[in-house]
């Protein structure tokens, strides 16, 4: 767990006059679940989008698997991205494709797999999130929880070493939220992945976090284990656990 797989140093990002990230640094170790929490608009989603290379920070460096992503060309960045999974808040399933096609899409550039092997892998991953019956359904036919599961399954198709979860339980009922949180934990154990989980959900954090980080106004406010932050003296940090 000591190998650092992702590292961000002194990230700054502004949109116009709005300073979203003021000074953020983090380290993510192999097979570690890091939960990041904070108020809405504090820059959590922007932070993980910077880590995925979707947003370019104004200042600071991001190292993924020891490589500075700012120095990589498109091809090299895409190779790194294939080692990262991303579960979007809305799951971001492709509307025009079935669940099976959604899952197979990230593997379309891998020509070494034939159709049968691909179908087998799709079924295997879909079974691991408990949704094998949804194979031929369209995204519009799925419930919110099912969409999240399919989104997670799709991000697992490339066997990522890091998974970035953007509010995985938002908009779900408590029971489904708990199931998704448990699934995140199962994925960590089964695939030995490291993960950054952005969430407001205390129960999700309790189940999944090895370590937690609080973000306030675009900067790191506190860091520690769930128990440490739950018992923090700082009233702002403590307010999230009430």
């Amino acid at each position: 767990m000591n190998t650092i797989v992702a590292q961000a140093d002194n990230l700054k990002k502004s949109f116009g006059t709005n300073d979203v990230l003021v000074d953020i640094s983090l380290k993510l170790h192999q097979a570690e679940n890091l939960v990041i929490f904070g108020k809405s608009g504090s820059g959590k989603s922007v932070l993980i989008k910077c880590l995925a290379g979707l947003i370019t920070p104004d200042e600071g460096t991001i190292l993924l698997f020891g490589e500075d992503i700012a120095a990589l060309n498109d091809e090299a960045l895409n190779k790194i991205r294939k080692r990262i999974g991303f579960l979007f808040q809305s799951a971001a399933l492709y509307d025009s494709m079935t669940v099976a096609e959604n899952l197979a899409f990230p593997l379309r550039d891998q020509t070494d797999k034939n159709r049968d092997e691909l179908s087998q892998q799709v079924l295997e991953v879909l079974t691991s999130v408990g949704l094998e019956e949804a194979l031929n359904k369209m995204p519009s036919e799925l419930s919110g929880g099912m969409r999240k599961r399919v989104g997670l399954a799709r991000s697992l198709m490339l066997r990522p070493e890091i998974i970035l979860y953007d509010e995985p339980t938002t908009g779900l009922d408590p029971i489904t939220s708990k199931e998704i949180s448990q699934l995140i934990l199962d994925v960590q154990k089964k695939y030995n992945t490291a993960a950054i989980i952005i969430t407001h959900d205390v129960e999700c954090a309790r189940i999944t976090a090895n370590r937690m980080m609080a973000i306030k106004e675009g900067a790191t406010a506190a860091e520690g284990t769930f128990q440490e932050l739950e018992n923090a003296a700082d009233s702002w940090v403590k307010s999230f656990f009430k």
Partner: protein
Amino acid sequence: MQLYNEHAQSHCFVKSTALNRSSHTTSAPLSAVLSSARSTIEEVGLLTRFTARFFKTVFRPRYEFAELLRQCYTMGYRSFPLVVITGFIMGLVLTIQSRPTLAEFGAESWLPSMVAISIIREIGPVIIALIFAGKVGSGIGAELASMKVTEQIDAMEVAGNNPFRYIVVTRVAAATLTLPLLVILADAVSLYGAYVGVNLKADVNARLFLIQVFEKLDFSDIFPACIKTVFFGFAVGIIGCFKGYNSNKGTEGVGAAANSSVVIGSLLIFIIDMIAVQITSLYIQ
């Protein structure tokens, strides 16, 4: 546990007021015009870069043939009824409207030739391209903007797939290939409409009608008209994709992308048409 220093400084508000002072000295309407001109120039620059990226990507593997065919089916086959109905009405109405004027000069026998030249040279390509901009251009703009809002484009990007190739290149190529075929179809149906229009007040058989049509039609009428529809299709595709792909105002942006795809696409059709007519008249007498 580690607690970090508060970052209570409100960075948003600590800004120099020099810019504000200078803007007060400029009259409001002038600054609005300058701002509008600046954003238009920026938009043209971004569109040029987007188009350059299209040409850079389109000839490089991997080629998305399956998606290209799907888009051709969506844009072409599904526009079929609209194009057929419009084409027929276009030919019929033009014939009915032109008859009295030609009759006044005793040139009624010129009706099939005149209608055919008008439709094939100008009216067919432009009307069908405008319909295409309204149906397909708005559809592309709204679809891509919606994909952007729901983070589907980001999802492709983060999985290391190339969303530009899969989404933009296929749609622009499909629009470029499909529109000329639709225009040829519409021209043919328009001529049938004209045949019906001619026979409302006369008795001209199909063979005589076709002889009269093709007697005056030349290669120089047909070829430039076909070539310009390729550019019309490309313009509709690239504008729809540009507006949708760069949409950034949430759900509001979806409507805005659809709307501006149609408006700018239609405007470009007229500009391209004007240029095409100038070039044609220079080289073909």
